């Protein structure tokens, strides 16, 4: 692994040097040390591959993989590359297969990646072919380590990655389990977007309770989220994972704002929703939180807000961009009313979401800001105190979760 000739500012994690968002060598090193090392990466939902042979292709880091149900109770995650001459075999986003066959020379793999068929392996009429010691078992598709946890498929390029629950840590397990409790999931739909911003900005954003009521004017305007409501920003011991939970300050959807510290922030109190069903929630998960997120470093955010449930899958695309794939989901037991409610609440999210659009735009604006920064330019992260040891601060006037993230980042990156 290469050493990066960059020095972190002496101030430590209260400053984040802009080069972490723009430097190509840093990005390449992140792929080696984070994405392809001992970390779990989000690979999909079990519900997306319901039958033996069902598959989806997806990208982990920058590497394309096939996620396939290879047997009744087995999910395989295989690199989408023929071991023969490197062809990317599956070109479709999803489908159903009996086996995996490369079009170039028809090399055929079983659903679990084992190499089964090499045409003319024995030659033609005794001439040519592979030598006798050719061993197909040496040339199966690259298999990632897989763990399915409460219906979510996790994959890792490293065999040394600890079991998922240990990787996530007990402090965040309840936030994870709250959203995916083991109930059978159902996909509601997908959004895909490209954000011209560094992938770490997406992670910082979900761990930034400070911006919630200030950027997302929709939220305080309609009483969904206020900076003074009870909230919990929690991190695991390493600082890499984070969860943000928020309890309602009052019944969401109620008319008017009353005495509310956001009144002085330019929120137009005269605005009322024409159809309050857009934000009216039915309690369905454990606890009274109206917002619960679990960000599993580095690749995914699981989030519940009102009755919208979603997975946001992050795919880095160079230092200056990332793809964000939203999988909106519900539960198999949802009745018609809940199905409609989830679609309605889903309008807050995605590339054009009434709330999420703000994030995509502002992150792109941030990346444009970094692009012309001076060499030793840095962002400052000084709200609140402390870093990863400050778990569960209970208020939103803090950036401790961002400092915690970079405490881990500096360790794993050797910066």
């Amino acid at each position, binding site marked *: 692994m290469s050493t990066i000739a960059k020095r972190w500012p002496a101030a430590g994690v209260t400053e984040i040097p802009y080069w972490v968002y723009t430097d190509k060598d840093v990005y390449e090193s992140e792929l080696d040390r984070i994405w392809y090392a001992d970390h779990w990466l989000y690979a999909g939902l079990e519900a997306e591959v319901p039958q033996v042979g069902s598959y989806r292709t997806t990208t982990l880091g920058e590497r394309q993989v096939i996620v396939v149900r290879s047997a009744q109770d087995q999910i395989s995650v295989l690199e989408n590359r023929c071991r023969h001459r490197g062809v990317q075999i599956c070109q479709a986003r999803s489908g159903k297969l009996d086996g995996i066959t490369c079009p170039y020379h028809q090399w055929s793999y079983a659903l679990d990646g084992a190499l*089964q*068929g090499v*045409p003319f*392996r*024995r030659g*033609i009429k005794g001439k040519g072919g592979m030598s006798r010691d050719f061993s197909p078992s040496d040339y199966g598709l690259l298999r990632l380590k897989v763990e399915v946890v409460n219906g979510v498929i996790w994959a890792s390029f490293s065999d040394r990655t600890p079991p998922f629950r240990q990787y996530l840590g007990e402090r965040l397990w309840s936030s994870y389990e709250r959203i995916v409790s083991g109930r059978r999931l159902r996909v509601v739909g997908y959004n895909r977007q490209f954000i011209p911003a560094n992938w770490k900005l997406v992670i910082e954003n979900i761990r930034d309770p400070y911006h919630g009521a200030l950027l997302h004017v929709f939220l305080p305007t309609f009483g969904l989220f206020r900076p003074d409501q009870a909230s919990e920003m929690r991190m695991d011991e390493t600082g890499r994972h984070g969860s943000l939970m928020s309890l309602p300050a009052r019944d969401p959807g109620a008319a008017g704002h009353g005495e509310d510290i956001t009144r002085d922030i330019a929120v137009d109190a005269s605005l009322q929703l024409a159809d309050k069903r857009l934000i009216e929630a039915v309690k369905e998960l454990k606890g009274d939180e109206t917002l619960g997120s679990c960000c599993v470093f580095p690749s995914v955010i699981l989030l519940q807000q009102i009755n919208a449930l979603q997975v946001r899958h992050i795919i880095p695309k160079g230092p200056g961009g990332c793809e964000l794939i939203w999988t909106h989901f519900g539960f198999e037991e949802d009745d018609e009313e809940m199905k409609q409610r989830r679609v309605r609440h889903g309008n807050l999210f995605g590339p054009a979401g009434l709330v999420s659009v703000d994030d995509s735009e502002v992150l792109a604006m941030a990346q444009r800001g970094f692009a012309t920064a001076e060499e030793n330019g840095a962002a400052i992260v000084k709200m609140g105190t402390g870093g990863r040891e400050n778990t569960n601060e209970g208020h939103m006037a803090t950036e401790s979760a961002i400092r915690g993230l970079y405490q881990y980042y500096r360790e794993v990156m050797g910066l």
Partner: protein
Amino acid sequence: MTDSEWIRIASATELKEAGGLLGRSIRGVPLAVYEVGGACFVTLDRCTHAQARLSEGYLEGFLIECPLHQGLFDIRTGEATGPPCTEPVRTFAVRREGEDLLVSLKSLQEAQEEE
């Protein structure tokens, strides 16, 4: 015709000269003819997986390995014994009369219907 009508498909000598594995088309039906330890067997010369010619494959014991993806069939029963093959291949009753190898006309006609 009666059940006892048989049709000649090959000679024992040419089968031996072909190393015990021969492909032959009789009345539009592709046949693979095998010889193992003096006994003869016949299957349809078409792998049930990807339709390759089994007669171009590799015979070891009573197992024929398809040349395309190395799937396996037992030539005695037609059973698919190795992946990626799962569906059995059609077999034909075969007789030897002197030098001649014969299959039953009825079984050939049944196969013809499926061609």
